């Protein structure tokens, strides 16, 4: 293997850009958590964000629907620059699905209400119509039989699948996954990853922060490897997992694959 630490990162070809990040920087006080991030996610593309913890993956993912603000730079979703806090931002967020590490289902609402809430309150659907949409998505993720339960009565894997259904019910342009399996017991990881694989095959644009290398390798079109707030390497998974260009990425892979 050729040892070359000074490879330049080939910029991604923007054939049909949906999410565009330009010179994105973020500071937490003195701490520089995102450094000059430039990347594009095309429509229908599956991008896996991987890297050691503290690399800024989650921060970057959350910046795309402005749950995290950025210090400088620009982020565009489907050609629109992220607006300031307010109605315009709310309507943009409605088009960007998000799945959290800790599920974050609304604790006081049933599974069905959780999924139907967005369609009713944001998409202005009638309750009947929204419930129908919600049931379709619950069936799609395989938890339709739990529709009338409260989130606390479900297993972690079921809760996360409900959370995916809740995001999908908004008919989003892109789905963000922020470590969707990291809070799950090991035996429940695969049921969530299966749903995500099916979603990927349906043509959904996905940005996935994950430590599941198997998933990243099979399902992703591109790996974005981050470390210390920077994008260190971007390449197709076949290339990344067999011949990573940077020592940083090779070190990371060695550690994580040795387990």
């Amino acid at each position, binding site marked *: 293997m050729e040892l070359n630490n000074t490879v330049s990162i080939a910029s991604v070809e923007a054939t049909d850009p949906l999410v565009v990040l330009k010179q994105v920087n973020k500071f937490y006080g003195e701490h520089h958590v995102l450094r000059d991030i430039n990347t594009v996610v095309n429509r229908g593309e599956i991008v896996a964000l991987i890297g050691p913890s503290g690399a800024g993956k989650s921060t970057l993912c959350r910046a795309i629907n402005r749950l995290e603000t950025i210090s400088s730079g620009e982020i565009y979703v489907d050609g629109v620059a992220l607006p300031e806090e307010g109605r315009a931002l709310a309507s943009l967020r409605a088009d960007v699905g998000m799945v959290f590490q800790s599920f*974050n289902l609304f604790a006081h609402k049933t599974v069905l209400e959780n999924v139907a809430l*967005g369609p009713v309150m944001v998409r202005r659907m009638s309750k009947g119509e929204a419930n129908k949409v919600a049931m379709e998505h619950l069936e799609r993720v395989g938890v339709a039989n739990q529709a009338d339960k409260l989130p606390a009565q479900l297993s972690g894997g079921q809760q996360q699948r409900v959370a995916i259904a809740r995001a999908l019910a908004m008919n989003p342009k892109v789905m963000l996954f922020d470590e969707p399996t990291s809070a799950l017991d090991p035996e429940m990881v695969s049921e969530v990853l299966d749903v995500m694989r099916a979603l990927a095959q349906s043509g959904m644009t996905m940005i996935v922060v994950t430590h599941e290398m198997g998933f990243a390798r099979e399902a992703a079109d591109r790996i974005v490897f981050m470390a210390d707030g920077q994008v260190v390497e971007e390449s197709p998974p076949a290339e990344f997992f067999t011949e990573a260009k940077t020592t940083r990425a090779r070190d990371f892979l060695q550690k994580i694959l040795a387990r």
Partner: protein
Amino acid sequence: MQVLLDNLDLFVLGFTNTVVIFAISAVFSLILGCVVGILRISPSTPMRAVGTVYVNTLRNTPLALLMMFFALGYPKMGLPSLDYTTLAIIALVLYTASYVAEVFRSGINSINRGQTEAARAIGLTFTQVLRVVLIPQAFRNVMPPLVSVFIALLKNTTVASGFSVMQAGAIAANMSERGENLLVTLLWVALFFFILVMVLAAVQRAFERKWAV
């Protein structure tokens, strides 16, 4: 007991007025307190600043001073003249609302941040997040401290006695004019307050049972 029976008119009048002043003040301080509480957690910086200034000013002012301002200062301001009872209620509402606002804010803050993030991520606006996700969940947490604030309000109504408002706190003064034993009178007043507070505590328990998880 004789003291009570001989002066039942004063006791009835005093405590009726106390309950009325309390009820009106409670309703309005709840409304104003919620508004100020929402300002305190608003995403807009100027609105947050308004809420913070309100709470810091009103909460840091002794109630007696505030009452004095309304009893003595307000009539000289050339505004529509109001009777002392109304002025006392206004002072109580402004004062109590600052405490209600803080109870409301801490109740909202007690809800896991993820609930807000998930709600915002599906495109709900700030007011929708409050109404649909946060307030229904915060309600249960807020009940005990809110009842404490209202118990304090009930007792604070007596401060109005210094400004010629006839209520429970003024019973003793009137009784001593009638030549009754002051100590016995005060004990009776205290007992009635104790009973009123017990009623509030019972209301709290009933609410907590109803919203038990």
